[in-house]
C-alpha cells in the first residue's frame, strides 16, 4: 500500500473543482486522506484536540496553497506533507518534549525488561523522537513506500531507510524485545 492506493478515481476532478473554489470538492478531497492524516497527527501530537488543531490549520493552508500545487507529487503526498509540517509547527508552539534536534532516542536509558513488556505499542511509540514516530507511522502503520515517505518528510530516501531501522530498533527496545 502507499499513498497511491489512497488516490480515488475522481481525485483529479475533485482537485480541479477545489481549485475553482468549490469547498465541498476540497472537503471530499481531504476526506480521501483524512483517516491517515489523523493517524499521523494523533501519533505525533498525542491528543485529539491538538490533532484537530493541527489538521484544521493544515487543511486551510492546503486550500490557500492549492493555486501553487503543480502536481509534482501526488495530492496525497502533498497533503500529508502539509499536515506533517503543521504538526511540527504546533509542537514547536506547544514546546513539547521532542521537537528538539538532540532527541537521541538511541541513548534513552534502557527500560527494565519487566517494565518494558508492560508498555503497549502506543506508549512505546509515543516515547520515540518525532522523526522516528513519523517514519514508523508513515511506513509501518500507513504503508507508505520509502519514496512517498521521503517526499512527505522532505528527506532523502536513504534517510528514511536508516531512520526506519533506528526507529524499529528503538521500538523493539521499548517493547522489551531486545535487538
Amino acid at each position, binding site marked *: 500500500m502507499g499513498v497511491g492506493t489512497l488516490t480515488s478515481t475522481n481525485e483529479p476532478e475533485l482537485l480541479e473543482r477545489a481549485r475553482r473554489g468549490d469547498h465541498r470538492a476540497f*472537503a471530499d478531497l*481531504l476526506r480521501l486522506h483524512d483517516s491517515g492524516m489523523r493517524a499521523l497527527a494523533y501519533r505525533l501530537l498525542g491528543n485529539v484536540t491538538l490533532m*484537530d488543531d493541527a489538521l484544521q490549520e493544515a487543511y486551510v493552508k492546503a486550500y*490557500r496553497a492549492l493555486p501553487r500545487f503543480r502536481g509534482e507529487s501526488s495530492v496525497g503526498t502533498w497533503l500529508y506533507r502539509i499536515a506533517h509540517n503543521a504538526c511540527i*509547527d504546533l509542537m514547536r508552539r506547544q514546546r513539547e518534549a521532542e521537537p528538539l534536534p*538532540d*532527541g537521541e532516542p538511541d541513548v534513552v536509558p534502557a527500560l527494565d525488561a519487566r517494565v518494558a513488556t508492560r508498555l503497549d505499542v502506543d506508549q512505546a511509540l509515543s516515547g520515540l523522537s518525532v522523526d522516528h514516530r513519523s517514519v514508523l507511522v508513515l511506513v*509501518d502503520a500507513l504503508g507508505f513506500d520509502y519514496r512517498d515517505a521521503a517526499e512527505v518528510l522532505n528527506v532523502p530516501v536513504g534517510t528514511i531507510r536508516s531512520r526506519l531501522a533506528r526507529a524499529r530498533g528503538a*521500538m523493539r527496545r521499548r517493547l522489551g524485545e531486545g535487538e
Partner: protein
Amino acid sequence: MRRRDRAIRRRLRELPVPDHAPGFWAGVERGLEQADQDESLGDLSTVVPLERSNSYAGFAPWMAAVAGAAVVLAFGAITALVFRSGGGDELATSETVVVTPGVPATMAGSTTTTSVRVADVIAPSPWSDAALSRSDVPPALLLAWDEAENKEWCSALAPEALGEVAADAEVRRARFDGGWGVAWDLPDGPGQTAAGEDCPDCGRSAFGVAGTSAVQNPGTGRDQPNTIAWSDGSFAGYGADRTAAESTRRVADVVVAGQGCVYEVWSNLGDAHLVEVLQGLRLVQGMKAAPVELRRPGDAPMVDERGAPPWAGTVIDRAEVSDLVLGQWEELGVDSSLVFQDPGVELEGAELRTWDRGVAWDAAGGEGHDADNRPCADCGRGAVGLGWQPAAPEATEDGVSLPYRITWSDGSYAEYGGRLSHPALPRDRVVYVDPETGAETADALQAIVHVAGMNHDIIVWTHLGEEHLLTLIDRLRMVSSG
C-alpha cells in the same frame, strides 16, 4: 524485515485512530471561507473582519450611553475607517463604525454585518488599571499560574469584580496544557460538561479565563466576528466557540500588549457577560511576567545584518574533518556542509560524540543537558552541538520562529533563541522551568542556519551564552566535497 518488526508493524496498523471532535469540519469550512475572503480583499493586513450579526439586547442602557459618548469623542481620532457591507466584497466608506472597548459597535436592537478597518484605537486597556493584590485573586488562579510553564511570558490576569452572577460560583483550575486557566462553576444555568458539550442548567465552567501556551501573532483574534482594540496595542476578538459545533459558548482570543501568550476568556452567559469579564481583567501584583518583545520572521529591524557569510571563500579540507562528522553526513544523505572544527573555547575534558542528527561536545562539567534534553547546571553533557537537518519549509506568516535573526548578503540567514524555553522569550531570558519541580535552569541558545542554495540547515547550540553562539556561527566553514 525481522519477524519481530513485522509483528510490531502489524500492531502499529491495529492502533486505533480517533475521529475528529464534533465541529471539526465546520471549523475547516469557516477557515476556507476566511481564505476566500482574504483572497478577495488582497493584502489588507490591517483589516479586522467584523461580522456583527449579534443582537446585544442584554446591554445596559448606561453602556449604550457611554458608547455613544465614546463614539462622538473618538470620531475625530478615527481617520480611515473602511467598512464592508454585509455579505458583499466591495469596500465602502459610507458609514463609520467605532470599536469601543467593552461595548460592541452595534448597539442593542440593531443587527448588521460589517467588516471594519480600525485606523486608530481609542481607550486604555482594562489591564492598564492598577494591578490587583494576590489576596484579591482566587487561590485556584494563584496555584494554576504558579505552576504554569508559560508564566515567564504570560502574566496572570484576574477579574476585579464579577458581580452577583458569581456570588455562588466555585472557582477551580481549568486545564490548559502549558498554560494556566480558571473556570467558574455556577450552581445552575448554562454551562459546559466535562465532555465539552453545552448543558442548559449544569452551570459547569459557565465562564473562565486562561493564559494559553499559544504564542500571540499578528492574526490572533482577527478572524473573530467581533473585535475590541485598545490604545496600548492590546486586542480581543470574540465570537462563537469554534471547538464545538452547536455550542452557545462565546469565546474571546485576547492579546495583551507586552505578553507573549494568547489569553482566552469564555462565557456561556452571552456576549454582554463575556465583555464584562474581559473589561474587568487586571494584572496581579507579583504575578507579572517581564514584558516580552516578540520577534517573528519578517519583523524589522533584523537584529544583525552582515555582509558576506563567514563561510564564503574559505574551505576546510575534508581530510581534516572528524570521521564522526563525515559518518553523520553519510547517514543523513549530506555530501558536504558547514562545520566548526572545535567549540572555540576551553571545555574541560571535552569529548565529541554523535547524536541523531549531528555531533555534540560533552564536557567534564559545567552547563549542559541530560539525555532527556533537560538543562543541567553542572553535567557538561552536550555543552556545544552541531547538526544538520533538511531545510525547513518557509516560515508561515502566522508562525513564530526563533526570535533573533542574522542575515548575510548572499541571502543566507540564521535564526536563534532559547533551545527549550519558549520562542517568545528574549535571548537574555532563556530559562527552562522543570514542569515537575518548578526548578529553573539556564537554557541553551540554539541557532538554525539557513544557507543560500543548500538543501539542508545547520543546527548550532551552546550552553555558554549568546556571545559564544555567535562565535560558533562565525567559525562555520564549508568542507570540500567528497
